[in-house]
């Protein structure tokens, strides 16, 4: 069963919306009915060269799942985040 890597892409230090996004992601993960242990959540700095190398120009706050950016420039609702996670876990 594959791991689901969730990367929260924001500014360093995190701006208000980046912090909200982090909370939304944590909240969504905690509401997962199953598969929680397969989800790994990390933070990326949107302005770091490593992030830019992997994703190019990204509008923070953004969330990527398994290398694909799913939301950008906004804070998704917990419901949306949950849908994204469930979809990824199902693959």
């Amino acid at each position, binding site marked *: 069963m594959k791991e689901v890597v969730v990367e929260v892409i924001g*500014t360093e230090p995190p*701006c208000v919306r980046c912090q909200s996004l982090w909370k939304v992601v944590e909240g969504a993960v905690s509401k997962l009915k199953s598969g929680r242990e397969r989800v790994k959540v990390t933070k990326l700095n949107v302005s770091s*060269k490593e992030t830019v190398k992997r994703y190019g120009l990204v509008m923070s706050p953004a969330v990527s799942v398994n290398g694909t950016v799913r939301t950008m420039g906004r804070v998704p609702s917990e419901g949306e985040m949950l849908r*994204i996670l469930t979809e990824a876990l199902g693959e």
Partner: protein
Amino acid sequence: MARKLRTSALLIFVAAVVGAVIYSRIVAYSLAPTMKPADFQGLPLWEIPIAYVWDYLQHGIICLLFAFVAAGLFYEFLPREWVVKRMGSRKAMGYIIGASIAPLFTVCSCTMVPIFTGILYAGSGIGPAITFLLMAPAANVLTILLTGEIISWEIAGVRIVASIVTAVAAGLIVSSTSWGKKVENEHRVAVDKKASMQLLKPPLDERLWGSLKFGGYLAKQILPFFFAGLIAVSYLEAYLPEELVSGYLTGVGGVLLASVIGGPLYTPTLVEIVLGRGLMDLGMTKPVMLSWLMGQPYDIPNMMATSKIVRWKVVLTYALIAWVFSVVFGLTYGFLTGSL
């Protein structure tokens, strides 16, 4: 069903805000403060800011509401993926997008620097990055709407044109300098072709609600400083002698002075507009106002933040270019309209 109701409610709200602005146009209700400096001079010290802020709110609240709602809507509905892909590629497109789309990315200052670095590292390079950097604070939705309402639509229009020309010119010039090229090459990063974007598109009511929430977020960030600025300006209107203003802030000398002060002087977002209006009530002329407003993108905090990424030589280059253009545009506008 609940979804459709929500969508309709939100759309009605947006329509109501737009309607209020249009209505104010039709009945010629000014959306700018109407009290003049003379009105303040007789008031007791503590009453001055209250009178000024009240005057402002009575007229300007619709404008502010509209500005933040519009900012939120533009931000939510602009095609992010498309913009990000184009700003991250060939040069010419980068300039066009930097100049035309940057204004819609309302000043969420925490997004501006990351986008600037993103364009520099991954995208079209230092030219478009500088264009974006100068364009975003100069001609974004909030700034232009407020300039139009509080000062005049003529100046707002000229401000847009002047900002575009300055931003693009600065970008082109910096990208052609040896130190600009050096910075660009130092920072160029090869973007992994594998990374992809598959943005989730939420339903309309969530997007509308998100726009309003973002507008509210901007308002929360900007308004406290804006009102502090209003209080400061109220005292200026009451106590700054008109002779001082008409002596120093008119004519060619005025344009030069405004460009030098207006630039490095940091003013919180939108305060430069209110401050400018106050000075205009005290006798500052239109071209000097233009020069003053055009100083917005090169204030000290901005320059310091950018210098951490691109080094001072580049920062000073674009600051110099921005200053020159603010003088040139101020003088040209003054001669063309005979209002120096």
